[in-house]
């Protein structure tokens, strides 16, 4: 393997610094399953320095020779203290025991808490998947994305929706990575369930501010999800049966402690349950809806220095509307994501860790309608193939450098339509597939300037080019076609380059508190254009091109972080200001249409937006009672010259106040109680102010975009989980002696109640009219639709 000159330069620089020092490095793993632990804390009290493991569980510390106590901690695991006499470079792999296996009560560790004030991280949150599983969930479906919405600065897109908005940014501004592959549409069934099966997920981290240079392509947040690798010591299975779906995950070694696999599946059975009630003979026989997900992963440790991972996700939603009447139309609407990532970790030396990832993602949406006289089909999708290299260089205990590069080849199908009426086939030109290249290189350094000041500075250089073949229609002022401009294969239609500075800094006030500040700028080369006010699979991804400028996001944030009660309570206050340029929306009155005969961006209008706010966060990560309280005050506005007559208007996800409370109480090893409460300012809505009549029909006149507020949203959910007994009694038949043996088979029941006090939260509001204006019988009313009333659910889970 040859290094680029840049890398070599860094290496020699770092080596010069590191003379007479030795490196302690290795992996931190779960002792029971062999799973690498991401973000585990390594702390050396003697020098008050530490580090955290990377996404593969690797750490590296370069130190003066000497004897050190190495404290390792990870939430949900027992702490471990190891004394090391460092005389030469040394590999130290550390295994931590999960709490569940340790006999004593839950260990209280200060690891996460210390990270709160020590690191330069801002606006960052990790979810504990085990804790998420205890929280009440809609219809019992454990949902990682909906749990994220309980964090300050993260908002949901309305009732029951998994779509999320970070600090005033749209749902397309979140970079959602599943094992480093991009997931374009992270939800099932119109947003009610997310595509991530919690049983297959090891770690989930959200970065909503101070985004480091290693991430790019989206301006608002990064959601980094790591799938489990699979137990490399013994075979295990877990699963569950819920009201609407069942899950099963199996994992185990392929070659013990060298290679392992994980296979996880989930399928809903609404269609199976409703089938008996819709006999095939009925008018709608054959109609139904279901979704399924499959996650699979294998990994192989070639040597201490090399490790291979191959992981994939495949999910589909299928909605079928059939009709026994042969003259009536039938519909079929499949959509879904697929991702594959292949990764190779290589440790060049104790200080240099390389990860190479090849990724593939595919998102597609289809709609097919068929009837005797009429046929219609629509297809849209994205296909990405990418390659990425990331080097982590643990230069010294004060410097951690990361650099790397990324290339993605995008293929977009904006909307392809075929239609026929009678014997006439519509003359719809096939839109050219849009081909684009996206590339980035970055470098970042996290370093201690003084004992008090730590800085994470980075620079990312990105480029994007939309290339031919592409036909662009030349339109006159009336939007009528006058000609075509043809770009041949490989010819650049539009290209953009940008330097994206990223900076965050921490100033430690004392052992328990610090202040932090960050600045980051990013460019995003793809937009999501949405017709409706809710997230639908029909939303179309639109790449940047000559006429469609990339989104530019700039964020400033500052915060005060403080721990209380011996690091039991972590608190923070963050303020942010975010500026967004070149946002897109469909023009007022735009209609879904085929792209073949017009330019794919014809119906779009462009504008800007901003958001600012303050976020308060209090978290108790350990103890019998744990959870958090988050409160956000924020304002999110949009300014589009062609919308709302150019006047500023609130964004759809502008909520002035937003409060979340999440609590889990572990009564004992068998009983767990959990509750969540949310309150937020009502959603903005556009409603007519005036009416008039044309041909006797009532026409609505809208004045202010999002000028109305629905009633506030609030809801309480509760859940109780009962685990089976951890140990079983074994009576020796001959001696009569009673012993207790730990069960391998574990099962639990979770009873959850959604919307406990049955609040009719507004989902949307509309004005309706009935009757005839000509005879005075016209009636005009305002109506509010609410989705989920009080909804109990029960889920049975098992593992062995």
């Amino acid at each position, binding site marked *: 393997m040859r290094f680029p000159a840049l890398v070599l330069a860094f290496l020699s620089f770092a080596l010069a610094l590191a003379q007479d020092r030795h490196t302690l490095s290795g992996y931190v793993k779960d002792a029971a399953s062999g799973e690498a632990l991401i973000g585990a804390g390594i702390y050396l009290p003697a020098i008050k320095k530490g580090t955290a493991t990377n996404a593969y569980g690797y750490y590296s510390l370069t130190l003066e020779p000497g004897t050190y106590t190495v404290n390792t901690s990870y939430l949900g695991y027992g702490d471990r203290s190891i004394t090391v006499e460092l005389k030469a470079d040394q590999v130290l792999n550390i295994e931590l025991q999960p709490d569940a296996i340790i006999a004593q009560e839950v260990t209280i560790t200060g690891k996460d808490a210390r990270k709160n004030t020590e690191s330069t991280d801002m606006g960052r949150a990790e979810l504990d998947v085990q804790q998420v599983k205890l929280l009440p969930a809609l219809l019992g479906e454990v949902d990682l994305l909906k749990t994220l919405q309980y964090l300050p600065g993260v908002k949901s897109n309305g009732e029951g929706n998994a779509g999320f908005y970070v600090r005033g940014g749209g749902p397309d501004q979140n970079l959602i990575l599943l094992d480093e592959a991009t997931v374009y549409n992270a939800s099932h069934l119109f947003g009610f369930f997310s595509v991530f099966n919690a049983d297959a997920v090891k770690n989930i981290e959200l970065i909503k501010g101070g985004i480091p240079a290693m991430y790019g392509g989206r301006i608002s947040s990064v959601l980094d999800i790591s799938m489990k690798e699979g137990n490399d010591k013994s075979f295990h299975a877990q699963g569950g049966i819920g009201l609407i779906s069942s899950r099963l995950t199996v994992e185990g070694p392929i070659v013990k402690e060298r290679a392992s696999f994980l296979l996880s599946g989930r399928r809903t059975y609404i269609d199976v349950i409703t089938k008996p009630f819709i006999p095939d003979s009925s008018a709608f026989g054959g109609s139904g809806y279901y979704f399924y997900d499959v996650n699979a992963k294998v990994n192989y440790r070639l040597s201490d220095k090399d490790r291979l991972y191959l992981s994939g996700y495949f999910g589909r939603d299928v909605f079928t509307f059939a009709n026994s009447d042969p003259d009536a139309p039938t519909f079929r609407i499949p959509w879904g994501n697929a991702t594959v990532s292949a990764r190779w970790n290589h440790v060049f030396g104790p200080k240099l860790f390389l990860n190479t990832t090849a990724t593939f993602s595919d998102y597609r949406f289809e709609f097919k309608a068929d009837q005797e006289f009429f046929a219609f089909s629509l297809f849209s999708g994205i296909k990405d193939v990418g390659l990425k290299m990331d080097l982590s260089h643990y230069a010294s205990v004060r410097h951690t450098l990361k650099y790397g590069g990324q290339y993605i080849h995008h293929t977009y199908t904006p909307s392809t339509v075929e239609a026929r009426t009678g014997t006439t086939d519509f003359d719809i030109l096939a839109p050219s597939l849009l081909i684009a290249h996206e590339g980035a290189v970055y470098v970042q350094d996290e370093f201690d300037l003084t004992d008090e000041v730590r800085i994470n500075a980075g620079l990312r250089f990105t480029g994007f080019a939309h290339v031919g073949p592409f036909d662009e229609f030349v339109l006159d002022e009336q939007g009528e076609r006058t000609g075509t401009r043809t770009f041949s294969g490989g010819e650049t239609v539009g290209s953009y380059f940008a330097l994206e500075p990223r900076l965050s800094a921490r100033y430690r006030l004392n052992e328990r508190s610090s202040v932090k500040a960050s600045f980051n700028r990013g460019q995003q080369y793809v937009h999501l254009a949405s017709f409706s*006010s809710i997230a639908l699979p*029909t939303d179309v991804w639109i790449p940047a091109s000559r006429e469609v400028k990339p989104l530019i996001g700039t964020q400033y944030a500052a915060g005060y972080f403080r721990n209380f009660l011996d690091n039991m309570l972590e608190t923070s206050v963050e303020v942010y200001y975010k500026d967004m340029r070149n946002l897109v929306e469909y023009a007022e009155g735009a209609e879904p249409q085929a792209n073949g005969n017009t330019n794919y961006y014809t119906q779009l209008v462009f504008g800007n937006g901003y958001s600012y706010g303050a976020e308060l966060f209090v978290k108790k990560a350990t103890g019998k009672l744990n959870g958090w309280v988050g409160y956000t005050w924020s304002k999110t506005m949009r300014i589009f010259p062609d919308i709302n007559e150019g006047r500023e208007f609130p964004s759809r996800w502008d909520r002035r106040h937003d409060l979340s409370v999440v609590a889990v109480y572990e009564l004992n090893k068998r009983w767990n109680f959990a509750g969540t409460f949310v309150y937020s300012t009502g959603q903005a809505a556009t409603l007519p102010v005036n009416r008039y009549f044309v041909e006797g029909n009532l026409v609505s006149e809208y004045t202010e975009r999002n000028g109305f507020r629905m009633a506030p949203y609030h809801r309480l959910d509760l859940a109780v989980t009962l685990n089976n007994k951890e140990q079983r009694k074994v009576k020796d038949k001959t001696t009569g002696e009673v012993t207790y043996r730990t069960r391998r088979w574990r099962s639990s029941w979770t009873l959850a109640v959604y919307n406990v006090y049955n609040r009719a939260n507004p989902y949307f509001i509309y004005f309706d009219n009935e009757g005839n204006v000509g005879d005075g019988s016209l009636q005009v009313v305002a109506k509010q639709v609410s989705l989920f*009333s009080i909804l109990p659910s029960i889920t049975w889970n098992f593992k062995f």
Partner: protein
Amino acid sequence: MTNRALPLLLSTALVLALGACEKEITVDVPETEPRLVVEGTIEPGEPPIIILTRTQSFFAPTDLSSFAGLFVKNAVVIVSNGLVTDTLDMVCSSILTEEQILLAAEATGLDPQLLANVDICLYSTTNPAIYGEEGGVYDLRIEAEGKTLTSTTRIVPAVPLDSLWFRLIDQDGSDGDDSTGFLWARSIDPPAPNNFYRVMTRRLNTGDDGAALDATFAAPLGSTSNDQYFNGQAIEFIISRGSSSFSDPEDRGSTFKRGDTVAVKLISLDKASYDFYRSYENNVATQGDLFTQPANVRSNIEGGLGVWAGLHAYLDTLVCIP
């Protein structure tokens, strides 16, 4: 149809699957100054007809007298074709005879009973020099209530219907319905692009009460189309029945019956008028639709709302026999 099918299905699915509930609420609507609304048309061989109303607060009273109060009287309405400029006369329904009311209803699309019950005034002329002609360009200027409204439209050539026929829905007889169907039509779109169409229908046969089934022409929902996808081609298309908003709710529907005598208008119009009718129908159809972003109707009236439309209809009549 295709635009509506998906949202309709999805919302049905939502409601079925999850038992959504709905309740009436009170919403405070801010008061704004009323705007003037024009519904003006001009056709070859016909005088211009202008109906002038105003907007009102969404939850304003809905009784007949408040509806009648929306019609603007004593406006100065001037139409010019470049050679002739004519100030239109105000005609109020209270002075019309029963026969004249029927004619007025036919010309305006307003309900004859409404014209008889409420004093509705509109603007027109008997000066043939300003009647519509193919290729004519017509300027409109209105002065009323301290406001000035202007617009321009043109009358484009009509496109003939090649053929027109009736087809039963239940083709194979499996549903035992041998009388309900749609009209089908064939037409050849002119070779030049940018043709815009609107379809209207009227059943001429009388009902049991002896009155015509449809007092006026009415447009079915989704009555507009353009040749973006079939420029210069022969096209077969389905025509469903238009229901006037004034018609008997029990007689609403999109189908015709065997034996109906149906007059069909294939109207050609310019882009601005087409944009108005299309966005107006969308505005009406998407009220209460969660899946669309609410949008105002696109008007070609400077200083007000509504439309000033040059229309050119090709008229054909068919007796529905499959």
